[in-house]
């Protein structure tokens, strides 16, 4: 078998506006994770440009990308990626220590209703609780952009909804631009805009006139 160039994304043209809640919807392998990674400064596209405010992300070197992530981006991962050797509070503090104007770590945990579990280690928390700690960790730095990669992918419906509620609340209360990627079409109902991705292409963009509350969702 010879080498084959695989393009995860092709001809993507996309704008996110401040305070917006966007859902990137697409099946597995559609390139949505790659898009999220590029938006978050974790990855760079082989061609094309990405802008953040007045800056061109694609011109950034490693150190500048690190600073971009440090100052502007919050991540929530499918598998939470908490540091198992740190308590919930310490996992949040890990980020607030390097941020410019962070929330108090405990306040961030209270935002996701976990103030009472602050001294628990990840292994002592349920999956949903772990994901909420991850959300607290992501928002504690008061990021401009919150990027969530399948935040409910590893969770059951009920817990998933609790996590989505937390994300929605952050978007509303802090005005954080939020992008959630998912293959779960139901989640699209809570977005301002839904961007459909398939085979590395944006196949359509819908605007939701009637955003639904996370609590109303079910799947």
């Amino acid at each position, binding site marked *: 078998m010879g080498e084959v160039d695989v393009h995860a994304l092709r001809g993507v043209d996309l704008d996110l506006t401040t305070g917006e809640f966007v859902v990137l919807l697409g099946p597995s392998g559609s390139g949505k994770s790659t898009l999220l*990674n590029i938006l*978050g400064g*974790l*990855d760079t596209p082989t061609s094309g440009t990405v802008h953040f405010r007045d800056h061109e992300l694609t011109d950034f070197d*490693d*150190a500048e990308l*690190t*600073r*971009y*992530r*440090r*100052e502007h*981006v*919050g*991540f929530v*991962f499918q*598998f939470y*990626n*908490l*540091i*198992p*050797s*740190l308590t919930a509070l*310490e*996992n949040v*503090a*890990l*980020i607030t*220590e*390097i*941020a410019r104007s962070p929330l108090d770590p405990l306040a961030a945990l209270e935002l996701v209703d976990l103030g009472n579990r602050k001294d628990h280690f990840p292994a002592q928390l349920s999956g949903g609780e772990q994901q909420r700690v991850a959300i607290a*960790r*992501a928002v504690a*730095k008061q990021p401009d952009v919150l990027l969530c*990669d399948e935040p409910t992918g590893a969770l059951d419906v009920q817990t998933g909804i609790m996590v989505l509620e937390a994300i929605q609340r952050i978007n509303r209360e802090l005005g954080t631009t939020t992008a959630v990627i998912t293959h779960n079409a139901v989640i699209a109902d809570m977005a301002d805009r839904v961007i459909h991705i398939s085979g590395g292409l944006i196949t359509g963009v819908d605007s939701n006139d009637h955003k639904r509350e996370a609590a109303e969702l079910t799947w």
Partner: protein
Amino acid sequence: MSALNRKTLRDLWQMKGQAVAIALVIGCGVALFVLSRSLLYSLELTQNTYYQRYHFADVFATLKRAPDVLADRIAQIPGVSRLERRIVVGVNLTVPGLAEPAMGRLVSLPDTRKPALNQLFLRRGRWLTPRRDDEVLASEAFADANQMHVGDSFLAVINGRQKRLKIAGIVLSPEYIYEIKPGDMLPDNRHFGVFWMNHEALSIAYNLEGAFNDVTLSLMRGASTAEVIQRLDELIEPYGGLGAYARKDQPSHMFVDNEIEQNRQLGLIMPTVFLGVAAFLLNVVLSRIINLQREEIAALKAFGYSKWEVGWHYLKLVLLIVGVGMLVGLPGGAWFGHEVTGMYAKLFHFPEFKYHLTYDVALTATLVSVAAATLGAWGAIARAVRLPPAEAMRPEPPTNYGPTVLERLQLGHWTPPVVRMILRQLERHPLKTSLSVLAISLAVAIVVLGNFMEDSLNYVINAQFRLVQRYDMSLVTTEPVSRRAVHEVASMPGVLTVEPTRSVATRMRAGPRSRRVSILGIPTDSNLYGLVNVDGHRISLPPDGMVISRKLAEILEIRVGDSVQVEVLEGKKPVREVVVVGTLQDFTGVSSYMNIDALSRLMREGPVVTGVHLLVDPLEQEPLYRLLKDVPQVAGVTIKQHAIDSFEKTVGENMMVMKQINLLFACVIAIGVVYNSARISLSERSRELATLRVIGFTRGEISAILLGELAIVTLLAVPLGLWFGYLVAALTVSTLDLELFRFPLVIERTTYGLASAVVITASVASGLLVRRRLDQLDLIGVLKSRE
């Protein structure tokens, strides 16, 4: 404390067993480094201060008899700073509590002033009363060995007359830090001692009034030693000068220097091995941790921790382990240093031998260990630094599997499933398997290294005392005597065999290189003295020409067939060209041998001898000793058994201590390596093993899979380690190729056996420790977590 630092501490706590094992290996390396460096420093400092404060001479010369006025002419040689003329004579002693004769050397001290050179340190008692002829100052080594105190007395045969001498004081001299009888390799302080006596009394006793027979000089800064020696030789030649020599050829100084040099060499090899192993272990362990923490690293980076912050985070873990190692190693090294200093104090007689651990030794040790550990961990840390955050988010791609050699050979179905699993695991991670084998083999090598010195020394002792010195007793005369003396000795009671010896002091020259060395004349096919090579092979002494030590050939840069200019330093002082007909791979010093008749022809002298080698009936030893004591021409008698006993008492005891220390260190490294390998293996496979348990494998079966792997790795490592041990031993032998001692590369089967046994035991113990963890395997937990 920052959350990231907390993570460091918790990670460290999580891996505490492994961390302690690695820290101990580092600790051993540091301890050995500190031990050898601080000992080196202490020895050098002690030696230098002693030499300076007590004016140890730079040049030494012995002659027959010269008038005092010659001393003034010697003092005028350009470059001479201080001069002391003395009388030095050898005497036989009768010491209370000692059946056999002892030998003494009497050195004269100026009656009314301090000597200008080689001043004494008064340990106990008082200085000599001027003009007393029955008082001496005794060397501490002799006094201690014979339990003699100030006020005790003994008998000495002074110029043929027996005289009772009283010990006024017990002293030390920079000339006799290592107090050894001329020609011996090991000290025998019971049977040889140095004494100082008033010059006037000694000159009267030996009819040397207004004369001297020994002179020592110190030189001005920048003076050429070689030139002074040449001028001095010219001046003393008419007075029976035996050839002056520099400090570097002074026996006591040579031994102390030899010891310093040995420490310098050993101080490099062993710490390097330990720190190398520690670096390797850190690499393996940290690689594993970083693999396990891929996603944590990704998260840290995603949240804006820079790659250098991530790198520093893991480096801190390494530095903490090094820190623990230092906490063990520095005091450990200092403690060993104290112990070994104590052992040296028995061997070397310094007024004060203090152990010094300097800040710069501690600092160097710290820097070296930090550097080694960082270097070892660097590969793993660099991977953490480089890991692109987007990639780290995804789990590691699965290993590419293929059929094993056994399966390719169609032999797979012959092996039971568990064995097949073990073999596949090993074969599918060839690099990991090789590294584990390598690490464990280093532990084997350390045991071999720790033990081979003893094997080597035992071999040397055995060869020296059984193959080379086949005699029971050797006897040296005060000056050459007729060969008839051999028959006289032969007729003494108890004497079974006698062979004559003729020893001639010479200086050998080859081009610009020269060396003072005695030629020993012995009969061809001597039964009592064998010329034996390192391999135990005896070489025969040709009827003519000279056989010299390989080391001497190296020093003079000559080969077999070359001729050497031999400048005899006694008698008529002939200068001759002598062909080197063979070289001898001997163990100690530098020597040169000739057929005794050929030597007589060289000397243009009749059949004379300067000593004999004897085989003695053990039952008749007592009367023979008594008889020999009363023969005035006998300068000294050496009983071989005393040398062996004295060796076993001093060097043997020290060897035992060193051996135990080495064994301890080897065990630390073996357990450190094996335990770490087993833990990493467990960590890598716990998921797989838990799965097996869930689908119905028993604890025994999964233990067999994990421990079987360890067993195979250990069994592969043992022969490799023995080979490594052999190589490192060979390296050690070649770096310790010093002039005074040379160690042959001898490794006994017991050493190989011990090395294998220690590592296999450590392996089994580590296996059992890990097996306990296997029993506690959290089946559900392991399956739930994603790796």
